[in-house]
């Protein structure tokens, strides 16, 4: 496999890892809030969060392009702060990926949190655990499987991301040219050999990842089963 393809693979892995970590950080409180309440506001946010699921990636990418541009909400704000515009940069890709994979992180997290009965949290409260402490030492461990699912789905989804990256990436090697774009370029240029090699690598990578995760999932099943 050519060096440019390896670089593209590396960009993809970096993008997926960064996006997944940021998503877990951002979506855990959001998912907790969504899981614990019933106000109509939550229903609205729920729907908004799921939007990337149904929007075609090119539509999402196009709106992102507008948002990130100098006249857009995000691009304009950053410009005002004297920061460079995020389009055509790895940062911009991360922003786009976060939006694109948002529902894949929020939904498993929210379902896991909803699945925790109120009892463990009440017990923890009587044992002197503050709300934040309860969340860290009881809710999170009991949601471990949901967190794992969210992480894996986000990672895999970002790894395979194409439309959004296409629209806002600019195809800059080493920065925004991901493996999926490189693959697309090979097929467009009718270079089927490199295309096969690259796609096979991606396939094996994803499969190995899923295997590892399902193994972990089984182990966690034992410790976070029904409340004793």
């Amino acid at each position, binding site marked *: 496999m050519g060096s440019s393809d390896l670089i593209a693979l590396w960009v993809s892995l970096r993008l997926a890892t960064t996006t997944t970590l940021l998503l877990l950080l951002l979506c855990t409180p959001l998912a907790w809030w969504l899981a614990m309440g019933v106000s109509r506001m939550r229903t609205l946010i729920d729907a908004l969060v799921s939007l990337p699921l149904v929007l075609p990636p090119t539509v999402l990418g*196009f709106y992102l*392009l*507008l948002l*990130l*541009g*100098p*006249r*857009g909400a995000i*691009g304009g704000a950053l410009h005002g702060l004297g920061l*460079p*515009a995020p*389009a*055509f940069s790895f940062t911009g890709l991360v922003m786009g990926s976060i939006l694109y994979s948002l529902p894949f992180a929020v939904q498993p997290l929210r379902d896991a949190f909803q699945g925790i009965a109120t009892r463990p949290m009440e017990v923890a409260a009587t044992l002197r655990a503050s709300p934040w402490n309860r969340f860290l030492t009881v809710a999170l461990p009991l949601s471990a499987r949901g967190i794992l699912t969210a992480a894996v789905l986000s990672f895999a989804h970002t790894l395979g991301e194409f439309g959004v990256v*296409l*629209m*806002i990436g*600019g*195809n*800059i090697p*080493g*920065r925004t040219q991901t493996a999926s774009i490189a693959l*697309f*370029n090979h*097929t*467009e*240029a*009718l270079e089927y050999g490199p295309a096969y090699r690259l796609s096979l690598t991606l396939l094996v990578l994803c499969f190995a990842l899923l295997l590892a995760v399902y193994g972990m999932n089984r182990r966690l099943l034992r410790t976070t089963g029904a409340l004793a």
Partner: protein
Amino acid sequence: MSWTGNLGCQCARARWVVLLVLLGSAARAAAVGAAELHVAVAANFSGPLQTLASLFERSGGDRLLISAGSSGELYTQIRQGAPFDAFLSADTEKPQKLESEGLSVPGSRFIYAVGSLVLWSPKPGVVDDEGQVLQSGTYRFIGVANPQTAPYGTAAQQVLTKLRLWDQLNQEHRIVIGENITQTWQFAATGNAELAFVALSQVLQADGSINGSSWRVPQSMYERIDQAAVVIAASPQKLAAQRFLTWLRTDPAALASIHAAGYRTAD
């Protein structure tokens, strides 16, 4: 019933059958006359083709069913047997390949349009009419279509190489590649890239002016962007397809429309 009466009934029935068969074939004949031509066209020419299609239909020609896409995609689809009748590519390479592979009708290939490269910004006053802005370097990003797959990209690369800017801009990661010419235009239109090399047809207004600011790159600086068309060999409507292509090549109204859209013609 008497034997003669029976025969009489049978004759009457036979007359109805004959009438129905005649009607049926007449209908089929009429349908053939009102057939749709399935035309594959490169994305950059899809707009002008819509206009040409209505012109063609009004002048008594067939209706066109237009499928736009990247030339690479369309080429691959045709190779896999996609049911197109004619293919209007963005280059000459794909039609040549089809011909050498026996997938197009020999002799049907011709250049239907010649593209013009333009350096463009949506903001007035950014691009001067000699393209000096490229050297002045105050732009962060410049959009270029993918040189590997889009002829306008290849042309842009040729221009930048001639100006000895290609390597430098590449090293500075200032060249952003759009997968197709439309995307390249979007980069500039949304302000994310200050400049972009686009097709004249994309920025030409109805009154012949160009919005924003632009530099029409002299033809001497890049290889001519010839766009060729062919009739697909597997088409069941080869004659009708050829009729359309011939009209495209020779009809004065068609040629005027192509010019108005920002393309030149081969002659």
